[in-house]
């Protein structure tokens, strides 16, 4: 298929394709990070993860509308505020949900799946009642639109770079929080051994609530960032849920590094296959490969060496 093109063209395409893969990688990491905390660290199957993301997206939408009407001068910068708001809104809702629902179910992980599925239905309908059944268009500040011209033929989308930056920032932040802070130490202690953590004086209930809130908050930021590349509607969250879970499971649930590695391998496979095959087949083959590898290596790519 490449016979007809010049070497320069091909080089440029491969460079851009590489970036496409990296952007997809960032998107996947951002999607999966919140879930990796909730599912990987806490063992809660949060089927409403997509809806938390969409809450972030709707917050961004509201923010953009607000700035357009009342503070047009500050519009170019609204996106940063929107992401913070998205984090707060999703995080607060997450903590509420943890308090009302999840904390009763820590001993029954499969039941969290059903309960959060019910929650996702309720949230979807709530979005539909509040924002209408149609997708909403989020106005972006102009500096986020368009592409960077690297050479004559290589162009890199700015919003892709932005997503990559946000992903890096949040990943580093989460890693520091979990592995370097006192809070993270307590989180890991609670996850490793709840009664023992309680015994040494850690308020496990509080830790649970904050951890869940943190996971949901990151989902909200992801949703906010995705308004640049995807759609915002009541059911948009459903588009992400299967991919997200597979990434976390494939990475080995208890490991942040695993999640990143798995997002990298899945995104590269998919974006390469998409380039050489048709889109539908690429998706099927990627998913099949993931399931196939999981059958051979069910613990995922990375696992913590833990005695069970």
């Amino acid at each position, binding site marked *: 298929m490449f016979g007809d*093109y010049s070497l320069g*063209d*091909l080089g440029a*395409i491969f460079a*851009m*394709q590489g*970036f*496409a893969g990296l*952007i*997809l990688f960032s*998107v996947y990491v951002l999607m999966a990070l919140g879930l990796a905390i909730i599912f990987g660290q806490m063992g809660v199957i949060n089927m409403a993860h997509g809806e938390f993301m969409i809450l972030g997206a709707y917050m961004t939408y509201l923010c953009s509308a607000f700035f357009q009407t009342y503070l047009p001068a500050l519009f170019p910068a609204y996106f940063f505020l929107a992401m913070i708001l998205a984090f707060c809104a999703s995080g607060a809702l997450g903590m509420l949900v943890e308090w009302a629902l999840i904390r009763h179910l820590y001993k029954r992980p499969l039941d969290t799946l059903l309960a959060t599925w019910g929650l996702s239905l309720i949230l979807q*309908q709530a979005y*539909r009642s509040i924002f*209408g*059944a*149609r*997708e*909403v*268009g*989020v*106005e*972006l500040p102009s500096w986020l*639109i*368009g*592409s960077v*011209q690297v050479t004559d033929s290589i*162009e890199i*989308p*700015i*919003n*892709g770079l932005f997503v990559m930056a946000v992903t890096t920032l949040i990943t580093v932040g989460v890693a520091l929080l979990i592995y370097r802070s006192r809070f993270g130490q307590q989180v890991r202690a609670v996850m490793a051994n709840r009664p023992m953590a309680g015994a040494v004086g850690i308020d496990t209930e509080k830790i649970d609530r904050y951890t869940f809130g943190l996971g949901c908050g990151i989902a909200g930021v992801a949703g906010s960032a*995705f308004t*640049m*590349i*995807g*759609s*915002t*509607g*009541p*059911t*948009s969250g*459903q*588009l*992400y849920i299967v991919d997200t879970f597979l990434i976390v499971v494939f990475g080995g649930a208890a490991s942040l590094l695993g999640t990143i590695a798995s997002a990298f391998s899945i995104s590269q496979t*998919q*974006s390469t296959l*998409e*380039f050489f095959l*048709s*889109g*539908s087949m*690429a*998706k099927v083959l990627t998913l099949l490969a993931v399931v196939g590898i999981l059958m051979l290596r069910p613990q995922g790519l990375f696992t913590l060496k833990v005695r069970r």
Partner: protein
Amino acid sequence: MDRGLRSPLRRKLLMGLAAAPALSLLPRTAFAAGPATSAVSTTGLAVTDTEVTCGILHSITGTMAISETGAQQAEKLAIAQINEAGGILGRKIKIIQEDGASDWPTFAEKAKKLLVNDKCAAVMGCWTSASRKAVLPVFEQYNGLLYYPTFYEGLEQSKNVFYTGQEATQQILAGLDWVHKEKGGDTFFFVGSDYIWPRTSNKIARKHVENVLKGKVVGEEYFPLGHTQFNSVINKIKLTKPKVIFTDVVGGSNVAFYKQLKASGIDLSKQVLLTISVTEDEIDGIGGDNIAGAYSCMKYFQSIENENNKKFVADFKKMWGEKTVIGDVTQAAYLGPYLWKMACEKAGSFDVDKVVAASPDLEFKGAPEGYVRIDPNHHLWSKTRVGKAKTDGQFEIVYTSPELIKPDPFPKGYQ
């Protein structure tokens, strides 16, 4: 929604109560607005001296609710207008609305309920092909009447269905001819969602490009419904450098595709993009900035200049709010109740067989799109228009086919 009439027994009782005084106590002249019920309904449809029942069957919940909202609003508007003007054959239209919930068996179930339990004289509804395919056997078995508003892939013709949208050749061919002639389009890249409508449409488009326009299709790609990552295909487009990108991506994927296309630096004021899946409704979600410059091929745009359309747009906004927009399917849905009314009046009856017999060659001059005619094959003759998307979410119409185009659901040479 009338909850009280759900049980068949209660329904019969109530209808009996309603009919009793009319038959015995009051003089017939009190209801002289239209012909006698026994004359206009002989097959047991839900027609009383004052009312006729019409079903509306769209998804109010689920993934398709996004698209079907407009259609459902237009149907309600048309029915309200008809009722204000005296109804059909002197009878007001009573609406029974059911939710298909974006789930095809639910559509079949609700269609059956509307026909068997509620005895609707006609049903306005369905949006996706899958939902139509699911209800079609029901309508044929119980001899119902369905007005289907969406542009679709063709390859179907049923006695019990009127298709008020375009079939594929009507929508695509004139648009391709235009892009070939005006924009010098000779190489095409097809991008679609992976299901029957895009695949059939692209098949027809490919035949037309290769056999009639003597052009070349340099790529054809399909993505699962709901796919949100298009960077790889955009790179392929950049590599193959087609004159025209031809798209039929639907739903949430649509939004993702145009946002990413815009971000990748493809400038739609230079690169020709022809789509058959973007109406004003979709632009709402995509954002006008992201798609400005693209050409869309439809039979109706909200910006059409004529008296019918001005009134339609004003009425629609009055009923559903200033901010609503009107897309191709919304307008096609608006035609349904009017075409039904005209057919009933011509037939002098609500009986499905008579309405169907009276329908061919009916002309509706009040259509917002201008003027339409029902073909004997139950599709509409209509014009094809090409609109250029503007940043405000409206289209500037750049081409209108000079004549009405004949519907051809089973096109020879395109299969």
